[in-house]
């Protein structure tokens, strides 16, 4: 199960590639604070798909009320939100 930030980042990049960007996701995400929505990485529709994927892959349940730009609009935000659910990364 992916747990470290690097593993979670890879999981998300791979998903973005498989679903939307077909190998270009790494290049599209220039930094962790970049907005997914404003730079075409993900649409709001895609946020929901990402949440469903993460829930399935990480066996967690994410609160739909927390499906906000603050929590999902950017790699850093997603990782921080996941970290709050998963707890500290295991060594």
């Amino acid at each position, binding site marked *: 199960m992916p747990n470290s930030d690097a593993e979670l980042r890879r999981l998300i990049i791979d998903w973005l590639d*498989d679903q939307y960007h077909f*190998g270009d996701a790494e290049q599209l995400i220039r930094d962790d604070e970049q907005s997914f929505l404003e730079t075409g990485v993900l*649409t709001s529709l895609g946020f929901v798909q990402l949440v469903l994927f993460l829930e399935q892959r990480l066996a967690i349940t994410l609160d739909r009320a927390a499906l906000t730009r603050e929590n999902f609009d950017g790699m850093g935000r997603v990782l921080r939100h996941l970290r709050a659910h998963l707890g500290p990364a295991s060594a």
Partner: protein
Amino acid sequence: MNTPSIVWQPDPARAAASQLARFQQFVEARHGLRFSTWAEFHRDSVVSFRRFWSDFLEWSAVRRAGSAEPVCDGDTIERARFFPALRLSYTGTVLDGGGQPDAAVAIVECHEAETPTAALQVREVTRGELRRDVARIAQALEAQGIGPGDRVVALAAHDADTIAVALAATGLGATWSSCGPELANEAVLARFGPLEPAAFVVTGQYRSGGVRHDLLARAREVAAALPTLRLTLVTGAAADAAVTRDAAQWPHHLVALAQLMAGTEAVTRDWTLLPFNQPLFLLFSSGTTGAPKAIVHGAGGTLLEHLKEHRLHGDLGPGDRLYYQTTCGWMMWHWTLSGLATGAAIVTYDGSVATPDASALWRLAARTGVTVLGASPAFWQYTRDSAVSPRTLGTTQLRALASTGSMLDDHWYDWARREVGEIPLMSISGGTDIIGCFVLGNPTLPVYRGESQCVSLALDVRALADPAGGPDELVCGTPFPSRPLGLLHDHDGSRFHEAYFAAHPGLWTHGDFIELTARGTARILGRADAVLKVKGVRIGPAEITGIARRLPEVRDAMAVEQRHADSPGGSRIVLLVVLQDGVALDRALVHRIKRAIRDGASADHVPAVVAAIPELPTTLNGKLSERAAREALAGQVPVNRAAIRNPEVLDLIRALPEASRDHPA
């Protein structure tokens, strides 16, 4: 099978006052008949379909000239022509809306907000404004030499300008064909190229997903590849500036809508009554092989069928506001447009259903007073997965939901009742081929969980049993006015025959599986042929496989729809590929295949799964069998396994881990 529970019952008073009830009374009084049940009335409409259409024409008071006799010339569906001596105007009827006053709202035009925190942009267009605009555009198009027999094509957003130009063009007797901006240029040209169009309409800019797209810049490539074009007309905001920017490089006359209209007089127009079977719309239906076929729909057939569906089955009329989630490339756009003829207003939206958030469309419905909202199961799923509860968003004016584009599973009826309200969820289904519906709603009948309320009036819809034991196939046994006039460039009708009549001679074979109940209700069980319906979009597999086969690593390919609960709309596309010797299907190749399909067709065409198999399943006659592959992907033993030359491939398909129905979307 047990009778499913009733999830909605019509209010008796409202049912008695419905247009359907009033039309039934009209028929009864006119002919001294008495129908005690819906089943009796429907049966009569099928057995006496000529009388039905004659009565409906009279009752609906469509302005017309000429003779309503013969109602139908010919007895076979394939050859019959309705009202060959009648003339009417689609545009005139739509604009008139049953005599709506100039002050009545015709279109509520919505555009996605410029920023996530800004308000939705809403503009109301009255009947009077629309009538004047359409008249002026027609006058200007006429001055440019556009007239009967010409084809006007559009790469356009779903907004009021597109509607006005479409009505003007068809009012002159030209034939209209449109694609939404989601379609890539290659796919647009595959559709428009054979049409040899005279004029091209482009929405200069459109917004989607928080991004403004310059459609005109991309349309230049399309315009350059259509040598018959004499005119490109740019609509929407900033059209003038875009024309100033691009006019010098454009291959022919480029003009903004406002410039085109500037030289016209503000007049209303007495629309010329054109032949009932005047070509009106060209729609596209992609098959398993070859380019998309262009289906020619006639003005009168389209108008009567849509009026029947809207007024009788949907009880749509003045006071209603109809919104259907569609682009102008899908027949639901044309269906919505015809809604104006009932006196209802229609709501358009240029934008994403997901911007600024998942409640966007429901808030739009609340803000604009939508009374009938239509979408696909993919949209219901998106709403549910986003934990949006529409009933909390002020959508109290909604009186009905319509769903089409994919099979509608039972649980959506519970969801709609719980999260939207005590209103009917009408599962409607038909298609581009008939520009209408075979099964749909009914304001006088209950809604049973999982079922369409009824079969369309005057259509002899039958469930044809499969001798091999598969699901029943939807066929129609009586002529109907919205049968296409034919396929474009199919001079001897052979392609038309092959597409709809060869499988079951004398019957219209639609390509859907259906279950008809003794209660007169229906369930659509998916496609009987290889056409894909995913996320509410009808997709011809040839458009996917044609692109995949162009990659040097791919020898052959087959695109198949797979039911998949976790995917938007409950199904997804699986692309089975046969690779060249020595080539392995790694992630990089999967991405190359997907990227090529996205860039050559659209994001909707991209398969969710790409899987390699040693060869494609073929019948003993050497034909590819998408049906066998689809059944294998569903975990079933294909009904026609004995007729498959290489049945071992089906076992491989069934065992593909990436195509497992449990595998994530």
